[in-house]
């Protein structure tokens, strides 16, 4: 008795409500549904949490306050002076990715952060936004980001291409990091679940591994949202303060 394992089946996008305006496929998919749920959950958590305004916070207010203070502290220490202006963006980004990762871990749900197009869109927003902020604040002086102070001219020939490359590769590394983590983690869970289903008696062993992996995935889900947000802060600091 061999069960065929199809670990990538969980990432299939299905059209829940087919929409084709002007020949463009704008169907409401399961990915769109999960994004809507994630965004609604963030709004609900923060709005409902802030409603009570109690001096001694209850459970919901505690969660909202911990999230707020955690990100506020992170932006303040990592984005430097003037970075707090961009706190709402970083907070939204963090909560959206966090909820996406965590809701994806619910069995039978869908992880929209495991799709490169979603993470790349998020990373591209960060990249374009940071570049615009840099040029708006420093004008053409922003280009000195690529040529650090006090470097000999001979070295600049080597250094400027490297700096340019490392700058333009940012949206790719930022998006592939999140995407690969989610893809590999969920595939691994599915593979071990497939082992557990195909072995008659000792399937309890891969099932135990799966439970442990699930805890690792919970850690990774929180950690990757944190990494995405903190790298956004570091890129912002580059644009605001030029090294």
């Amino acid at each position: 008795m061999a069960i065929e394992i199809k670990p990538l089946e969980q990432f299939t996008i299905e059209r829940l409500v087919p929409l084709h305006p002007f020949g463009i496929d704008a169907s409401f998919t399961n990915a769109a549904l999960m994004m809507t749920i994630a965004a609604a959950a963030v709004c609900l958590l923060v709005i409902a949490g802030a409603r009570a305004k109690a001096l001694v916070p209850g459970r919901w207010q505690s969660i909202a306050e911990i999230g707020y203070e955690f990100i506020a502290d992170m932006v303040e220490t990592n984005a430097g002076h003037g970075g707090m202006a961009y706190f709402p963006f970083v907070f939204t980004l963090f909560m959206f990715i966090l909820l996406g990762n965590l809701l994806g871990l619910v069995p039978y749900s869908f992880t929209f952060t495991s799709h490169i197009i979603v993470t790349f869109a998020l990373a591209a927003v960060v990249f374009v936004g940071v570049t615009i902020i840099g040029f708006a604040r420093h004008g053409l002086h922003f280009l000195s980001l690529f040529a650090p102070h006090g470097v000999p001219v001979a070295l600049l020939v080597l250094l400027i291409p490297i700096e340019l490359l490392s700058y333009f590769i940012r949206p790719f590394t930022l998006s592939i990091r999140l995407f690969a983590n989610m893809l590999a983690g969920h595939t691994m869970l599915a593979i071990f679940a497939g082992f557990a289903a195909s072995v008659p008696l000792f399937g309890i062993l891969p099932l135990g591994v799966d439970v442990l992996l699930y805890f690792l995935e919970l850690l990774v889900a929180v950690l990757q949202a944190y990494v995405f947000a903190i790298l956004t802060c570091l890129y912002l600091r580059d644009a605001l303060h030029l090294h």
Partner: protein
Amino acid sequence: MDLASAKMIGAGLACVALVGAGIGIGNVFASLITALARNPAAQVTPFAFLGFALAEATGLFGLAIAFLILFVF
């Protein structure tokens, strides 16, 4: 060599990337323990977890490639 065995070998080779991730993660937490043993008041744990996530991601690139070779192509 037929395609199926080439795929298996390719997936196995792609998993070699996890060697680096293992070394990196071990290094991160070894350094964290050293730092906390020398100065228990040091506020370095968030940076350690940032380093852990960055090191783990590089290995997972390879693992993702292995999965893609095995299950997509």
